Each structure stands twice: as structure tokens, then as C-alpha cells.
């Protein structure tokens, strides 16, 4: 049994399998997976119990309100050692149950919960005897989430129509660049529109080459990234350096929504943000609705799943893909504006720093679903913010390792937590019509 089942469970589910088999992974491997998950959870419990708990003393204090808020919540003070032992027990209980009996279909959820418990343990351990502002971390999580979620959304729109977009990074950078130049010259709103258009133009390049010339979509994505990085660096050196006034755009300020903005915790997180962050939430909701409830969405998804079927019903595959890709590109360009107009008002070479790739990961992690991608982006935003806070309170972990957190989280999540997401069936397949 061993030899064969080992081979099987490692192999991605292949398309040749008949439909009935497609969704099935055999139970033996499931059992083994359940055991492994159980062991992982028990390991986490052991870390908390034997490493973190003994090493902590004092009270960990987490601030829940900014000083200027209307309604103040008192800070959360947690006796670290006791709390850690309790959390270790919880982990051990969950892990033991998982190992012995398994949570079946809920085991992924339980594993997720275990990770959350573990992260909380780390936070308590690191903060023992000190304090930091939890609310600040949460607000920063939302801010850091925005470009990642928007980048992921850009990818989702393209890929739901069957066009792989790994040029998100380039679209972000391009949007950031034109956003700041036009923003400097003509004002923030014009900059925002220019950024959006830039993303659209880059997407047009992706659509044009992949649809009309059937160029490998991944190649075009790589090229868009290279091209935009090169062009923006070149133009920064050749033009912006000489004209610093072109690189000095107004910033969109945070707009506090009356009443809602005063709610403790929720208020500062969701109702005191810039227009770009609000737009991010709006676009996620809108895109979800459009994709799954509108005629446009049905057609776009049909083109991404089975372009032949769509074509046979008179839906133009090329036109549908063009539209979706350009819309996706515009979202990417808009997201790029966040880097300049949303935060600092100026451009610097390579300033997006890989956010597009993290967005790509969020897209896959979120199962090509806007809400899922937003959730994934929140995890990245959170791990990023958390690592910053931990660096600030001087944990024993070197900053380089703290800075790795988002990347490690991505790998763990993509490899372990979610299993395989199912991409649109025709994603990346060039459409050819005779």
C-alpha cells in the first residue's frame, strides 16, 4: 500500500481523472494528514508550554484605544505566565484530539484556530512586562492590507477570465509612478485617475499580447514587471531628479466617518482611513457582487472556465477577456496610487517592494475569490504589523527574522493550511478560435 499511496497523494489531481474522482483524495492519506496536523498542533503546544511560558514573567499590556479617541477602553493587562499555560493547555487539547480522533472536515479550521492561539501566545510572551498599542497594530494591519488586497483583486479579475496576471507588481509600480507625477501637476484626484489608467494600459498590453498573439501569459507578466521597473527607474533618474516638483503630490488624508469612527477598536480600524482604503473595501464588495451576481460576472467566469462553451453561446471570449483584464489592470494601477498618493506623496525606485507578489499569493490563498483574498491579505498585513511591533518592544528575535514573518506565513499557509485551491479551469490557456 505504502508505495502506491505515497505516490498518489503527492500527485496533483490530474485532469484525466473522470469527474467523479476529481474531487477525491483517498482516505488513507487524509488520515495521515490528520495525524500530521495533530502533531504540528502538539508541537506548538509544547513550544508554548516549555519555551515561552517559563521564559515570561510580568504582565503583558495591550493598549486598545488611541489617546485622542472619544471613548477610551482600558488597556488589556494579561498576566503572562498564567495566560501562556492556559493557552498551552488549549493547544494541547486541540492537538491531542486531532491526533487521536481528528476533526475530519473541520481540521483545517481547527489548525487555523491553533495558529491564532499560537500567535497570541507569542504576542503575550514578547510583551510580558511591557506594553504596546494593540489598536495601533490593528489599524496598521488594515492600512498594510489595502495594496495587497487590491493587488490580489487585480489578479482575480484577470484570472477569472482565464488570463494569468503575474504583472501585478508592475501595475502597482506603474500606478504609483504616474499617480505621483500627475498628482503633483494636477492634483490628487487626477493622479488617482492617471494611476488607474496606467494600470489599464499595462493590462491592455497583457490582453493584447495574450489574446491577439497568444503569447505565454506568464512571460508577459514577467515582462510587465521588468519593463515598468526599468521605465520608472529610468524616468526617475532622467526626469524626476531634475524636476522634484513633479514628485511631490498631495496625500489623501484619512477621513473619519462620523459616529462610526468613534466606536472603540472598530472605529479607528475601519472608519478612519483614506479614500483608497475605503475604496478597497468597496471594490472587494463590488467585485464579489459583480462576479457572482451579475451578467457580466457570469460571462466572465464562463470564459475563464470553459471558453469554448461561452463561445458556442455567442459570447465573445476575446472581448470578455479584454474587459476583465483591463478592469483588473485598472484596479492594479489604482492600488499603485496607494503607495504614493495614499501614504507619502512621492515616488522612489522600486518602492512597491514585492507587494504585487504578495498580492498574487493572497489571490491563490483566497481561492480566486475577492473575499477570500481580502482575508489572506489581512493575514499578511497582520503578520507585517505584528513583526513591526515585536521589533519595537525588543524581543529576543533578530529583526531580520521578524521581517521574514510575512513570507514564512505565506509559505506555511500555501503549503499547509488550505490545501489546494482550484484555479479557474481555463486560467492561463490561450484561447484560439479558428
Amino acid at each position: 500500500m505504502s508505495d502506491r499511496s505515497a505516490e498518489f497523494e503527492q500527485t496533483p489531481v490530474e485532469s484525466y481523472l473522470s469527474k467523479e474522482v476529481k474531487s477525491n483524495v483517498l482516505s488513507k492519506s487524509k488520515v495521515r494528514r490528520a495525524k500530521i496536523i495533530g502533531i504540528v498542533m502538539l508541537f506548538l503546544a509544547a513550544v508554548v508550554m516549555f519555551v515561552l511560558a517559563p521564559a515570561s514573567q510580568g504582565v503583558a499590556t495591550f493598549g486598545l484605544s488611541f489617546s485622542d479617541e472619544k471613548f477610551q477602553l482600558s488597556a488589556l493587562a494579561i498576566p503572562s505566565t498564567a495566560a501562556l499555560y492556559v493557552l498551552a493547555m488549549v493547544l494541547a487539547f486541540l492537538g491531542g484530539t486531532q491526533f487521536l480522533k481528528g476533526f475530519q472536515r473541520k481540521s483545517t479550521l481547527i489548525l487555523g484556530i491553533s495558529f491564532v492561539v499560537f500567535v497570541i501566545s507569542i504576542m503575550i510572551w514578547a510583551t510580558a512586562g511591557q506594553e504596546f498599542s494593540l489598536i495601533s497594530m490593528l489599524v496598521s494591519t488594515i492600512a498594510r492590507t489595502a495594496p495587497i488586497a487590491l493587488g490580489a483583486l487585480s489578479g482575480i479579475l484577470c484570472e477569472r477570465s482565464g488570463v494569468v496576471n503575474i504583472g501585478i507588481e508592475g501595475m502597482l509600480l506603474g500606478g504609483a509612478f504616474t499617480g505621483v507625477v500627475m498628482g503633483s501637476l494636477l492634483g490628487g484626484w487626477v493622479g488617482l485617475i492617471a494611476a488607474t489608467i496606467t494600470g489599464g494600459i499595462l493590462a491592455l498590453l497583457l490582453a493584447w499580447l495574450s489574446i491577439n498573439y497568444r503569447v505565454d501569459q506568464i512571460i508577459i507578466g514577467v515582462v510587465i514587471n521588468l519593463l515598468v521597473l526599468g521605465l520608472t527607474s529610468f524616468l526617475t533618474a532622467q526626469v524626476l531628479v531634475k524636476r522634484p516638483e513633479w514628485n511631490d503630490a498631495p496625500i489623501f488624508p484619512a477621513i473619519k466617518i462620523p459616529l462610526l469612527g468613534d466606536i472603540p477598536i472598530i472605529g479607528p480600524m475601519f472608519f478612519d482611513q483614506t479614500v483608497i482604503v475605503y475604496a478597497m473595501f468597496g471594490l472587494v464588495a463590488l467585485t464579489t457582487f459583480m462576479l457572482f451576481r451579475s451578467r457580466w460576472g457570469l460571462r466572465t467566469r464562463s470564459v475563464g472556465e470553459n471558453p469554448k462553451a461561452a463561445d458556442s453561446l455567442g459570447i465573445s471570449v476575446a472581448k470578455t477577456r479584454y474587459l476583465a483584464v483591463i478592469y483588473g489592470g485598472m484596479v492594479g494601477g489604482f492600488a499603485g496610487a496607494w503607495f504614493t498618493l495614499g501614504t507619502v506623496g512621492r515616488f522612489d525606485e522600486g518602492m512597491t517592494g514585492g507587494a504585487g507578489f504578495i498580492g498574487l499569493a493572497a489571490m491563490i490563498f483566497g481561492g480566486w475569490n475577492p473575499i477570500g483574498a481580502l482575508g489572506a491579505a489581512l493575514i499578511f498585513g497582520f503578520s507585517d504589523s505584528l513583526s513591526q511591533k515585536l521589533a519595537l518592544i525588543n524581543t529576543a528575535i533578530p529583526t531580520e527574522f521578524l521581517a521574514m514573518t510575512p513570507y514564512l506565513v505565506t509559505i506555511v499557509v500555501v503549503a499547509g493550511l488550505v490545501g489546494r485551491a482550484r484555479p479557474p479551469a481555463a486560467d492561463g490557456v490561450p484561447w484560439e478560435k479558428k
Partner: protein
Amino acid sequence: MAAAVIAVSALALAGCSSSDSTEDTAAATATESASETMTDEATVDALPGAGMKACQVTDVGGVDDKGFNQKAYKGVTDAVDQLGVEGVVLESQAETDYAPNIQSFVDQGCDVIVTVGFLLGDGTMEAANANPDLPFTIVDYAYADGDITNNNVLGQVFNTDEAAFLAGYLAAGVSKTGKVGTFGGVNIPPVTVFMDGFYYGVQKYNADNGTSVEVLGWDPAAQSGLFTENFESLDDGRTFAQNLVDEGADIVMPVAGPVGLGSAALAGELGTDKLLIIGVDSDQYNSDTANPGVYLTSVLKEMDVTTFNAIQSVVDGTFVGGVTVGTLENGGVSLAPFHDQEGAVSAELAAALETIKAGIIDGSISAQG
């Protein structure tokens, strides 16, 4: 068709960049395009450096890094203006470029070669030893005895912590929240030396005044603190500053090149009653045209002056290798004026700063804690 579309997107990216290329020489950054010759034809014969060539190799940060490359380059351009030398710069794209870039300057017959940063330490040493009669000067680097056979390299190092010490003292005195913060680009000595000085300056203020102002973001004992791990992401500059503000800091010193501009942008938005920024390297009141008002002061590291002096000594024929150390005493490092924030600094505090400065210069106060 392809060309057309690509050109369109190129245009879009170029924004409004027209072919109008009149140089805005008044711009504070004063950076000309790479390798442009800056000899002023009219005065060429009048100045002592006419016919001589000063050449700079940057590290991977490039000449517009808003940090030491740019500052050193200002020394070169000053030499062009004041001494009449020809100034050339080469930007390095990768580690592998240093040696050939230096070599191509050697081949071009440069009279003095300026290199910048520890990354160029090895390359400069090799070139200097291969060309023992050619003067070199390297910013932010000093060689050990015996490294340079013919003593033809002038290392420029700076006791930045002395000026940062003053900045820390000042910040502690100005802070209303009793918390000040700092963060760095990467945890390396040219960065952390600022943070060290800043930290000890705050401690000094506490000792002198019986206060307990806290420093967030750097712990000199553990040599650990808050780092963006890059010198590019302006957004990090903003987020990190926000983070420090949320923890109660009202003055932040970012030591991360252009990343600090992100912090300044935040200060511009929050208002100077919430956040003041301390600039580094240059007087950022002058160079950050977007938010000049948010700078309490800047920790100046006069690499342009030392670089200019080195070039001048070559022009004069008085060049000597070795190490020049920029200190408060010789003006190599200093604290910039308070500019718009003059009002935030009380007369007593300003006076105390002068005393401290004198103390550092005469050695009675150590910037090393």
C-alpha cells in the same frame, strides 16, 4: 503597431515629461544627470582646478539616494563650481560593478577618485594599491594600517554619534509626551551610529534634568531595534513612524535615506504638534521640499565638505592619504538650524545644547553613553 502601443504606454509612464529639458539648477538637490560634464566653459581657465577631473563611483544606492552618495556628489559639484574641475559620476547597479567602474575612471585619467561606502572598501583598496600615485578618497570608510601601501587613500569617517547625541538631547527637551523614537534602514554601523548617539543624548537629558524620556526603536545594549530592512519603501517610513507615534513618541529620527521622507509625509499630515522629524545626513529642511516644516533639526554629516576638501587638496597638490574624522569640533558633523521649529526650542535648551556641544568637543562628555 507594437511599437506604437508600447510607445503610448511609455508616454503614459513618462507622465508629462516633454522634451523641454531646461535644467532647474535652483533645485536644492542639485543633481545633474549621470556623467554629465559640468565644467563652466566661461570660467574654465580662471579657476585652479581647470583641466583636472574629479570622478565619483556610487554604490548601488545611486546618486539620488538622498544619502551619502548624493551628499558626496554635492562635494564633487561644489568642486566643479568653485575649483573649475570636471566632475563625473558613475552609478553602480550591482556589487560586480564597483571594480570596473573604478577601473574605467582610472583609465579615463581621473585626477582624484571618490568612492562611497563600505561596499566599495575592497574595490577602492585594490585600485589604490594598483595605482599608487592616484589619489582616492572614500566616504564612510577607514582602512586598517597596512591596507594601503602608498597611503594614497583618504578615508572619511564621521563621529556622527556626536551630532546625533545633540539631536537626542534636543528631542528629549522638546518632547511633550516623554517618548521619542528612531528607526533605521538596515542594522549596520553607518545607520546605528546615529541611533546610538540619539539614545545617549536622551539619557544625558534625563540625567541632567531628572526626567525619564524614553527612546523607542533602539536599544544600544542589545544592538536591536526597529528596522525597515530596506532603503526604498517610503511607505515603510510612514508606517514605522505611525507605529512610533501610536506608542507615544512625538519626535522621530528615521535613519533610512529616502524612507525617512515617508515619515516626514506623516508628520506633515498629523501636524507638528503630534510629530516632529529629525533629518539625517543633509539639512532636510532644504532638501525635502514637500514637508520642510516638520523637521525639528537634522543631524548633519558633511560628506560634501570633506569630499570637497579632498578634491581641493588634490588640486592644490597637498593631498595626503590617511583618515579624516568629521567631528563636532571640526564641523564634519553638526546639528542643523531649527528653521521653522525655532519656537519649539526654549532658550535654555538651546543654551544647554551649546554647553553639551562644548563638552563633547573638549571631551568632558562622551557621545558613547
